[in-house]
């Protein structure tokens, strides 16, 4: 309840800060977006209000910034409580800066996230080059992250544990115009994680005894995503097809195809549908039941089990003008998203809803 009472204050402060930051500058364009997300599954609820801003800086620069609060209510022991329902709050802020220099755009990003038992900081550079009259765009980015993890949410009699996780991510991408209505893109990510990757609250039943979860300290993850976007002029429809292939050295292989349809519905309005399928194998060391507690690695992490999921989503976007409003109100853009995730694992099915309002402005 405390979080709900404080949330409007956080949003108001952030909105004021963004307004003050842009006031008095040379004329440029910007956008401020407010979004609220509600996520609900069998044992977990998440409410996430967030604020996103994007601003032009000078003739060639662009800044984005975001601030969000996560209120996670869970009955899960693994999430930090001792059997009962609890609520935990996470605050995250971040930003990017990019600068255009001819056909090259370079920049950097930073992000900081804080909750009582998990602090995470990461950042790194980005580079994009638009080649062959902007028919081909090459992108590259690198990120280093440092997480500090503890079991601060455990009961007082439990000994305190603190650990760290360092992560490195490299990403390269290529996007190519394939026709007047067709764009193709491929992205490859590799990440390397070194540190605590198990959950300090989670335990495993092994040979009849309850023992702490033990995961490997190192993990290398690879993911390739390919996508095609096709605009059909006759019906003003955009079709987006994507496929993600994942592999890591814990033995998990994943396949994720996705199909999206976005339909223009007159001036300033659009609606769309999405279907996503995800299937993954289990990690080499994951077992639904362990007969020995002396194994090197033990896990009760559902994310490491074999499962598949189906996601169905619909969204609607409307600009104020489409509803008959004029002036500044006519420029406002609203969005509603409803998503249902059918997961055949212990998480159970999930319902996700978004509501967002975007305000474009000049300064």
């Amino acid at each position: 309840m405390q979080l709900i009472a404080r949330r409007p204050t956080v949003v108001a402060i952030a909105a004021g800060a963004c307004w003050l930051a842009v006031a008095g500058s040379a004329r440029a364009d910007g956008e401020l977006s407010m979004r609220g997300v509600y996520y609900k599954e069998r044992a977990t609820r998440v409410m996430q209000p967030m604020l996103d801003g994007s601003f032009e800086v000078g003739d060639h620069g662009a800044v984005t910034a975001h601030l969000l609060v996560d209120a996670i209510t869970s009955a899960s022991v693994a999430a930090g409580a001792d059997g009962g329902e609890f609520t935990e709050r996470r605050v995250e802020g971040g930003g990017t800066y990019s600068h255009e220099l001819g056909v090259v755009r370079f920049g950097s990003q930073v992000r900081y996230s804080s909750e009582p038992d998990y602090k995470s900081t990461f950042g790194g550079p980005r580079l994009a080059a638009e080649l062959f009259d902007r028919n081909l765009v090459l992108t590259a980015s690198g990120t280093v992250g440092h997480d500090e993890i503890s079991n601060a949410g455990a009961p007082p009699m439990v000994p305190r544990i603190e650990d760290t996780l360092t992560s490195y991510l490299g990403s390269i991408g290529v996007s190519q115009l394939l026709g007047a209505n067709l764009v193709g893109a491929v992205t490859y990510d590799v990440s390397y994680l070194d540190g605590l990757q198990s959950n300090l609250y989670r335990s495993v039943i092994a040979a009849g005894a309850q023992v702490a979860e033990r995961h490997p300290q190192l993990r290398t993850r690879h993911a390739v995503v390919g996508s095609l976007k096709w605009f059909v002029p006759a019906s003003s429809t955009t079709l987006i097809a994507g496929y993600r292939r994942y592999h890591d050295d814990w033995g998990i292989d994943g396949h994720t195809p996705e199909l999206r349809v976005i339909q223009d519905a007159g001036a300033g309005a659009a609606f769309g549908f999405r279907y996503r399928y995800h299937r993954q194998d289990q990690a080499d060391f994951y077992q639904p039941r362990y007969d020995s507690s002396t194994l090197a690695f033990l896990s009760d992490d559902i994310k490491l089990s074999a499962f598949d999921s189906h996601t169905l989503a619909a969204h609607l976007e409307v600009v104020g003008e489409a509803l008959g409003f004029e002036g500044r109100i006519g420029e406002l853009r609203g969005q509603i998203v409803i998503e249902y995730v059918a997961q055949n694992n212990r998480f159970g099915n999930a319902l996700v809803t978004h509501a967002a309002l975007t305000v474009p402005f000049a300064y």
Partner: protein
Amino acid sequence: MWRLCVVGLATLYLATAGCAVVRPHERQNLARRSMIEDRPVGQSRFLQHQTGSREGADGGTGEPGGGCGCN
């Protein structure tokens, strides 16, 4: 299998990329919102957070994960 998949995707991409040159005056449809920013940044970030905390096969977005306390 993994390498074959990467090589296949790269070959397919290189084979198709050389076929078309789209001139600036032909790009009015490519400049549509649905073709550029098909998903608002806040929606993308939550989606990444959601899949990162519910799936072991995360990644491919070019964005770092972490910070979700979802070990």
